[in-house]
């Protein structure tokens, strides 16, 4: 019998384990000098090394080591003064050497942690996710299975191999088991991956695009009956390629496990694949018999021995930790909790900060990005970052409003124009001829009075007979004792009459 989520939580404690793979954004591959640019023609970014031609040898990309150490430091890890690469042996067509160079019992970074904060029923609460290890490895190539119904290898007519991705540097970040998250397990996992993504983005070591696979999460979940201290059998869900999917996958697996356990079944230790459309997972290869990868130190490579001075140099270059940065921003800008959460959820913190750094008022900057611009992004299903509007544009817009050249209402039209590719705010204003109506009370009162008195003439103008306006302008000038700017009066009058 299927339990509700609340029932699951009442009977079981979920235990999480998260493995995140990050593609580094180095210019060249992990062990050769081939380019890493995404999306090139198949097999154009290959060489004897990454194709595993006989005799070819790997040489470590120093930049990848640097990036990995930075990641380790940002995750509060210790950095090993000596670590080695190992070979993970298994046969698969898209892995040219039929072993993957990885790190096994000697990872370069170990014993770190990441703190994440989530909203709970009792208010914001911090959870510490302990990081077991951060290690380097190389990516595999890609197989494209042609024919057959599923795009999977079984049933395919033939398969095509693209080795462009083979050898791209990957960093794997593995947590220790994460107990004690209770009903917040899915949110904690999501917050952890989000925090990792922000940290990695801040370090500028990866594109961290989940949808392109440069950040991939494998979520391990098991359930432990309340009061027990024996860990349950875990499943490992792969292919979780968005933050929302992390949350859904874990929630889904908790429900699936509980259903098995409630009916007296046993959870299979296996790899499962998350399916974006249904939010469910399907069974992958079974891990009941652990595969024997015959790890051994790679004799083609020398140990990685980063000097302590170098590690300290790298530590000094670390940017502000995202969680601390958020705290600082919240205080400096005096942002209410809800608004802060909204900014984080909408992923606009960077862009708002960039706008503020250009001199804009923080509240106004936030309002623009979270309000009108987010709305357009949602309506058009385009990521905010991909819209044609920049922090500089918004800062300029805020200036134009502050100086009275635009009202908020008109500014929204300008935003539309900028996003529509019409240029900077000033250019849009000029092109569209947008200007603030001078709502000088006296002037408008005079115009309204004159139009009422000479309703017939006003009607002529309204219907398009512009020369008739002259009489009205004269009357307004008289009404205002000649102190008004005739040009302005003409403009306002015509606008008032819909011309």
């Amino acid at each position: 019998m299927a339990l509700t989520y609340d029932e699951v939580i009442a009977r079981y404690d979920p235990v999480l384990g998260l493995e995140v793979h990050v593609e580094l954004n180095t210019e060249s591959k992990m062990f050769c000098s081939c380019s890493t640019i995404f999306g090139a023609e198949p097999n154009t970014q290959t060489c004897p090394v990454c194709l595993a031609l006989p005799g070819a040898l790997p040489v470590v990309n120093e930049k990848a080591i640097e990036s990995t150490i930075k990641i380790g430091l940002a995750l509060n890890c210790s950095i090993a003064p000596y670590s080695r690469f190992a070979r993970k042996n298994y046969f698969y067509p898209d892995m040219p050497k039929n072993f993957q160079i990885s790190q096994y019992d000697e990872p370069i970074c170990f014993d770190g942690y990441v703190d994440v904060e989530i909203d709970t029923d009792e208010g914001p609460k911090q959870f510490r996710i302990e990081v077991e290890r951060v290690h380097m490895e190389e990516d595999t190539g890609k197989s494209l299975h042609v024919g057959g119904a599923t795009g999977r290898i079984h049933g395919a007519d033939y398969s095509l191999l693209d080795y462009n991705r083979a050898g791209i540097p990957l960093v794997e970040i593995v947590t220790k088991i994460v107990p004690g998250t209770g009903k917040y397990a899915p949110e904690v996992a999501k917050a952890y991956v989000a925090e990792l993504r922000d940290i990695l983005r801040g370090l500028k070591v990866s594109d961290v695009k989940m949808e392109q696979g440069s950040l991939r999460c494998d979520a391990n979940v098991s359930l432990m009956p309340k009061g027990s201290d024996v860990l349950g059998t875990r499943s490992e869900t792969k292919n979780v390629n968005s933050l929302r999917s992390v949350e859904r996958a874990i929630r889904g697996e908790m429900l699936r496990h509980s259903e098995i356990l409630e009916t007296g079944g046993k959870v299979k230790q296996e790899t499962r694949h998350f399916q974006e459309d249904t939010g469910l997972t399907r069974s992958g290869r079974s891990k009941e018999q652990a595969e024997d990868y015959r790890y051994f130190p790679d004799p083609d490579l020398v140990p990685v021995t980063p000097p302590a001075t170098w590690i300290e140099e790298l530590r000094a270059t670390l940017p502000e930790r995202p969680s601390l940065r958020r705290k600082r921003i919240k205080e400096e800008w005096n942002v209410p909790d809800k608004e802060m959460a909204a900014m984080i959820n909408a992923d606009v913190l960077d862009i708002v900060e960039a706008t503020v750094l250009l001199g804009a008022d923080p509240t106004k900057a936030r309002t623009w990005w979270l309000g009108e611009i987010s709305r357009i992004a949602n309506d058009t299903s385009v990521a905010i970052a991909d819209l044609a509007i920049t922090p500089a544009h918004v800062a300029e817009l805020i200036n134009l409003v502050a100086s009275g050249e635009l009202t908020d209402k008109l500014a929204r039209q300008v935003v539309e124009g900028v996003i529509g590719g019409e240029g900077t705010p000033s250019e849009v204003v000029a092109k569209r001829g947008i200007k603030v109506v001078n709502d000088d009370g006296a002037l408008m009162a005079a115009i309204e009075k004159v139009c009422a008195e000479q309703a017939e003439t006003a009607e002529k103008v309204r219907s398009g007979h512009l020369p008739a306006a002259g009489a009205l302008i004269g009357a307004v000038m008289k009404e205002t004792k000649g102190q008004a700017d005739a040009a302005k009066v003409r403009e306002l009058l015509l606008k008032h009459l819909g011309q």
Partner: protein
Amino acid sequence: MIYQNAAEMAKALASKEISSVELTQAHLDRIDSVDSDVKAFLHVDKEGALAQAAAVDADRAAGKNLSAIAGVPLALKDVLAQRGVPTTAGSKILQGWKPPYDSTVVSKLKDSGVVILGKTNMDEFAMGSSTENSGYGPTFNPWDLTRTPGGSSGGSAAAVSSFEAPLAIGSDTGGSIRQPAALTGIVGVRPTYGAVSRYGLIAYSSSLDQAGPFGRTVLDTALLHEVIAGHDVKDATSINAKMPDVVSAAKNGDVKGLKIGVIKQLQGEGYQAGVLSRFNESLDTLASLGAEIVEVDCPSFDYALAAYYLIAPSECSSNLARFDAMRYGLRTGDSDGASAEAVMAATRDAGFGREVKRRIILGTYALSSGYYDAYYGSAQKIRTLIIQDYAKAFGLADVLVSPTAPTTAYKIGEKVDDPMAMYLGDVATIPVNLAGICGMSLPAGLADEDNLPVGFQIMAPAMQDQRLYQVGAALEAALTSKWGGALITKAPALAGGAR
């Protein structure tokens, strides 16, 4: 002119007495006339060699600065990748493969104007001690065509001893240069591990493999050694330091005041009487030249063979995984919708010979979880002990010596079905590989019982390769004068040739 030494040929070339084209053609003619009996070559690159020779002649005519052995022909072990020239490592699984790149050794040879005549036969993937494990049939010892030339670099050794080439490149993982040099009456050197780049050397056992030179004299060998040694950024295990001056050492043979250590464990039981008597005579000769002979104890050497036959197969089981029919080489069983796995299995079954399969299976087993510590782990510990034994011994002696091989050349087929007997032939050469140091074999005379060449092995610490040449040159000079000419001149004439 083919009976000259490489140094003499180089002199004649430099003084323009002969051209490289003439010299190359003379060797090609020799190959034509005797190689049907010797079968040293798997592939003779006539056109390529003559073109290279012509280019060197042109450079010389233009007054360009050339290397000491520019224009001298050479035989290349088929384990080294040469762009556009069939490279098989003696295996059917690579039949017809033409590398799209040059190994670093080949680049250096080409840069030095050394003319590459062709690719020589070898035990498949360098696994063997007799060249009988070649996928293309055995090579025959020019001293007695019913016997093996040793191995795995048997083709290269036979080419030099049959005057098909004055110089050759081999590779030495457990003695594969020194042992065939001993069995064919020539000089062979395994340089210090990391002194010669392994880039483009088809890997058997990465931590033990090292390419090195063959010549008919110590000086010739040094001239070739100098050309191929040096740091290479494409090989992470390559040593980045100034290489020892081996040529000067070879020109200044001298043992006065040197301590020469005889390794207790590498003599006596299991060694042919004729081998021991030539070895002891050589020691007497060295003593008469002013060296002090001391005995050293290396107790761990008793386990060297066992350690070697765990480490080398372990590494090869992983190194040879890349031969999977996906990207190059043989492909069989690819029909009727066979899966990739089935094609890999069928190809590896058809393409690999028995000895290769035996070692892959051994290594796969030794690396398996549960056995790793007992086998691979223990073997690595023995390796450390052997390194310590050497360190201690080199504290007592400048160089260490032993017979190169326990026996002279044996009959084709004699040990082919008894792997243990074959493996025992490497007992004296393997410790050098396990310790990563350097070793030379040079002729010590003919054994009384069979009139076949005996090899004398000299070992020196890592990056002290010049000591091999200094001692080797002194011994060579004394022995040659005693014999009234180089040992090789005593080899019987081959049917197809003048000698």
